[in-house]
């Protein structure tokens, strides 16, 4: 019998002074979560391609002058990671503050009030006020679909909906138009959602949406709870493996 050879190797590293072992190819975020070390994220969702857009998971790695996104950085042997520091805390706080200033997030009238990842993140990061000038953009609500609704005012452009639509459902109804602060989620070639020929109406986008941007119609303030039971199975639902 020959020895079993494998391409994956085990690696040991240190996260927040805790010695941890993992397999090569795993990201810092995966390993940290497996070991109950919390790194905040908004755009990451296990099973979808790594996006690296929210920048909340930035961590410090010893001997590297730059910060690294934990969701997109693979662990290497002997790495020393620090997931929290006064500086990181400050940056994370500023990022979430900026999200509140970017669009019209009014929790008191939001259907997702109390079940919102953005709101929970703000609480977790102890945000009590926003220092930045508010943009107060005039944004539309797409209420054209029979039982789902897109409210651009509450969108944080994490693109989980775009990714779940393209990668899991395979419809690729959703995408992005414009750039910078003018970016927005669109359906097909920027048509009303209800007119979309490609939308299968599966509703995955609604359930992966972290805020009240994508909701079921007919929900009142605080009533929109998302069905998250299927989220652990996203990886299994993929046709193209990551």
């Amino acid at each position, binding site marked *: 019998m020959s020895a079993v050879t494998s391409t994956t190797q085990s690696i040991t590293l240190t996260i927040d002074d805790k010695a941890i072992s993992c397999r090569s190819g795993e990201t810092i975020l995966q390993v940290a979560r497996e070991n109950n070390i919390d790194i905040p994220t908004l755009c990451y969702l296990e099973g979808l391609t790594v996006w690296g*857009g929210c920048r909340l998971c930035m961590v410090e790695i010893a001997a590297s002058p730059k910060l690294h996104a934990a969701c997109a950085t*693979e662990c290497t042997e002997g790495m020393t990671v620090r997931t929290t520091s006064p500086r990181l805390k400050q940056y994370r706080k500023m990022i979430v503050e900026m999200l509140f200033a970017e669009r019209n997030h009014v929790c008191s009238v939001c259907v997702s009030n109390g079940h919102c990842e953005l709101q929970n993140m703000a609480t977790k990061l102890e945000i009590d006020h926003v220092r930045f000038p508010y943009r107060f953009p005039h944004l539309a609500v797409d209420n054209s679909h029979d039982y789902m609704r897109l409210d651009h005012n509450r969108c944080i452009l994490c693109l989980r909906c775009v990714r779940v639509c393209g990668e899991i459902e395979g419809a690729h109804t959703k995408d992005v138009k414009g750039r910078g602060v003018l970016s927005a989620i669109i359906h097909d070639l920027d048509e009303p959602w209800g007119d979309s020929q490609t939308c299968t109406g599966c509703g995955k986008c609604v359930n992966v949406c972290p805020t009240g941007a994508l909701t079921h119609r007919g929900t009142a303030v605080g009533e929109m709870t998302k069905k998250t039971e299927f989220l652990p199975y996203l990886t299994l639902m993929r046709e193209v493996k990551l």
Partner: protein
Amino acid sequence: MKPEELMTMMEKARADTFEHELRVCTESGCMSLQSDVLQKALSDEVKRRGISDKVCVKGVGCMGLCCNGPLVKADKAMYQFVKPEHAPAIVEALATQPIKELLCDTQQPFFTRQKLVVREHFGIVDPENLMDCIAHGAYQALLKTVTTMTPPQVIQEISDSGLRGRGGAGFPTGLKWATVSKAGGTTKYVICNGDEGDPGAFMDRSVMEGDPHRVLEGMAIAAYAVGAENGVIYVRAEYPLAVKRLTKAINLARRHELIGHNIFGTKFSFNVELRLGAGAFVCGEETALIASVEGKRGVPRPRPPYPANYGLFGYPTLINNVETYANIAPIINKGAAWFAQIGTEKSKGTKIFALTGKIKNTGLIEVPMGIALRDIIYDIAGGIPDGKAFKAVQTGGPSGGCIPADLLDITVDYESLAKAGSIMGSGGMIVMDETSNMADVARFFMEFCMTESCGKCIPCRVGTYEMHELLDRICEKRGTPEDLQLLKDLCDMVKQTSLCGLGQSAPNPVLSTLRYFEQEYQNLIAEAQAARGQTTHADTSEHIELEVLP
């Protein structure tokens, strides 16, 4: 094409000489001043006189002094501000003395202090004429490479030359090539980044318009060195003339089998295609560029994996800037040692700069690395017009920073500029005089970054908007000291947490103007506070009458 054929072609083209040559600049700058009409007027005049066999009229690449265009070189004399109606006189003067009123002094420092490596054939060869380019040595370096050198030798030569990427960051080119050559797999790509988008920068455009064959040759040599067979030139669609010239150059080179299958009878094959950018500045960032070529939305992705390992369509990819590729042929022809003796210890060779702003001579220059900034501004560019005082020069566009008057003696190389809080960048130099307000300059660049942010990551998308908003408040005299503090905090955060180079460098203009000209920000805020104090006072003195309705 066989190696002998290239030599025969070169000899034949060299034998085809004329008694007189009239060279008209036909790059975008002079073209906008009707140099194409002028060229036609000159050829018509030559035809009318029946001296077509003696006088050759041709369109050539940029001669540098764009502010005095259109420029015409008539044998040894250079004419400036030439209009189509001057054509008869110019043709007339070929046989006699040059026209004094139109003469441009070629002995002025603007011309004498330059060192031409990349631009050595600018103003001499016709970029649309392959024979003319071959007569001046085009594709000789490629011939030498594929017939006498092994790929490791080529990489060694480029490493020895000390050439660094001309796109801005200055990554050692030889090291980049070595990385791609060592990446596994048989399919590899070579990409030329011609998505030059900095305000006030037009070096790459000029190189692509003035000597496209040199870019192609550099790419082919790079492909040979790293083991790639496919190349993509990514040019922004806003450069129609560059696109036209490159298309023509690719077609001509393909027709003469200078690119394509089994180049010079060897096993080496190389194909190039042209891709046009759709107007996004961020597509100059390598991963966004790759996404754009793949037909996806042009947004960057986190690195690693770097394109050297996982690039276009997932294959190892080499991405270099236009000017970097244009440097390759001279290095191969004249040797790494020759190239390495130009410039400073860590920055070798020459750099093209686009001079714009408040200076006498605006245009394109190529200078050796290590030249003092003062020499560029006062000697080559001729100083500040209208008796105004110099204030600052912005290098590196929206990703760079400004350099104030008391640092003018620093040398122009990657390290010195970085130390001064700016970057070499792709080569834009915008000179500002005392009338410019530096907070306003920072606002201008921030507006550019804000509109060009792709919107993928939050720090860049919202951060640039917020920084612009705060700068707007300060410039419009509505700012407070808290705004300035918030601006500083934002600069730090956006720089540290943004996903790609655009966001990471977007705060640079603010940081560098704050470093050298914070007083101007303070003054604006003080003015705002003074004005606010007055209005508050005025407000309280006025009574508001309220009417109570029943």
